[in-house]
């Protein structure tokens, strides 16, 4: 059970949030209304997607204070505490891409398939492009194609043909590129990487305990962030880390755990 602690906690969080949102639409619960683009907590506190608000802002819209305030609250929470936790603890796409990544490992796709090159920074280019296009076209362009909002809206308000978009992401991650959507393309994840760059809750790597079994690297959706494994004791500080805690789960030696961001680092040999 210990090996699945954070995984189960994440699924519980993702599903409870979904239940609250769906309950708001079907049974009129007031706890969490709306969807991930913009919500209202207990009918009072606004929460908004900072990336959607950025796109709306560059169109030159005369937008309401509620979404601005909501975006600030969300950005502040992830910026100070959660890091990129949105991606692994809240986003409904995570369950799809995690399944694809798991299936890839089980079927050993990465061993038989020649990788084609995609840059990890592609998502930042897409982020920049989306803002330029939003300004030029006078509409939030990513919000019109976002499979994240499509999935979330679909689950709450009715899916329509949205299932197709989800299937595309699943098949892309399964057949084309490991963690292709979340790790390379998604500009919302990129936004959260930037917002959470300096956040406080981080995975800490205790190098002396590490036996270099590489289990953490195998399960990590953003492998670059674990560059210190078996090299030095330090916090995983790269903004791309989603704080999913899978590495903590799978580490048999307790060489990884959540803690407060540390600014020191110590090479393994010196201890």
């Amino acid at each position: 059970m210990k090996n699945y602690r954070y995984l189960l906690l994440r699924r519980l969080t993702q599903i409870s949030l979904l239940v609250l949102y769906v309950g708001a639409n079907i049974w009129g619960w007031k706890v969490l209304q709306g969807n991930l683009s913009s919500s209202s907590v207990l009918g009072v506190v606004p929460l908004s997607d900072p990336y959607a608000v950025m796109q709306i802002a560059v169109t030159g819209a005369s937008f309401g204070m509620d979404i601005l305030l909501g975006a600030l609250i969300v950005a502040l929470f992830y910026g100070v505490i959660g890091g990129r936790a949105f991606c692994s603890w809240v986003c409904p796409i995570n369950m799809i891409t995690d399944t694809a990544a798991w299936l890839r490992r089980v079927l050993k796709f990465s061993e038989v398939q020649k990788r084609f090159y995609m840059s990890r920074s592609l998502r930042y280019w897409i982020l920049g492009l989306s803002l330029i296009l939003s300004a030029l076209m006078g509409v939030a362009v990513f919000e019109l194609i976002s499979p994240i909002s499509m999935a979330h809206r679909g689950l709450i308000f009715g899916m329509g043909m949205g299932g197709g978009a989800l299937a595309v992401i699943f098949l892309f991650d399964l057949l084309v590129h490991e963690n292709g959507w979340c790790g390379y393309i998604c500009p919302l994840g990129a936004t959260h990487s930037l917002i959470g760059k300096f956040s406080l809750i981080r995975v800490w790597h205790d190098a002396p305990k590490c036996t270099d079994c590489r289990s953490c690297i195998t399960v990590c959706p953003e492998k670059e962030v674990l560059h210190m494994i078996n090299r030095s004791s330090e916090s995983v500080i790269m903004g791309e880390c989603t704080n999913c805690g899978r590495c903590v789960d799978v580490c048999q030696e307790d060489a990884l755990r959540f803690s407060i961001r540390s600014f020191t680092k110590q090479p393994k040999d010196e201890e």
Partner: protein
Amino acid sequence: MKTETPNERRRFLLSIARGIGLSAMGALVWSAYVGEVKAAPLVLRPPGALDEAEFIKNCIKCGLCVEACPYDTLILARPGDNLPMGTPYFTPRSVPCYMCTDIPCVPVCPSGALNELSVTSYVKNKAVLDINKAHMGLAVVDENSCIATWGIQCDACYRACPLLGEAITIEHSKNDRTGKHAFLKPVVHPDQCTGCGLCEHACVTEIAAIHILPRALAMGKVGDHYIKGWDKEDEKRLEGASIEVTKTKISEKSALDSLNDEGGL
């Protein structure tokens, strides 16, 4: 200092060119798609919605208006609806807007896409929500398929209208075919019509003979060149009129000179 070999410089320039090229490719594909989906002129928005272009800029697609609607009138456009995805709309023939007096869908809007001020009236200097000020669309009658214009008695739309006798009135005229009956034709008044669609919902024909169109599609605009000279109110429109005068070859000189010069006379 390390000097760059031409090879490295070339690689650097090529990678930049590649980045720009790929971005341009992505931008073209993306904007083509967006251009297609946001051009949906036949869509009816909730009460208080800004003009379509502004509405689409502002709406964050959260669905709070949809959740607030007690009649399930509003729907968020789903993939496959061929409308700007995730934006709220309604289809009056299925479920019209029942014009709640407290307009629950508007105050919940966090983005300002539904503008509370546009559906607010002032009673004794106190702001109150007023659904009768909504302009969601405009009812248009297709006289060809309206049985009232055939001379068959039907006032379904007139009776269904929440602004009975204001937004739709009945016009009487003589039925020359029988010589002793009257036509009772429905006439829609654009200033009063809110576009709620109760008339379209009530219409008895197979496909509704009265239907709601977005106002931008249903209405024309006179412009500055014509006013009702007998109406003091209408003259106010000229205050903001353009004073631009076009000059063509003929109007370069005064009218008289221009005529006198014609043909070297």
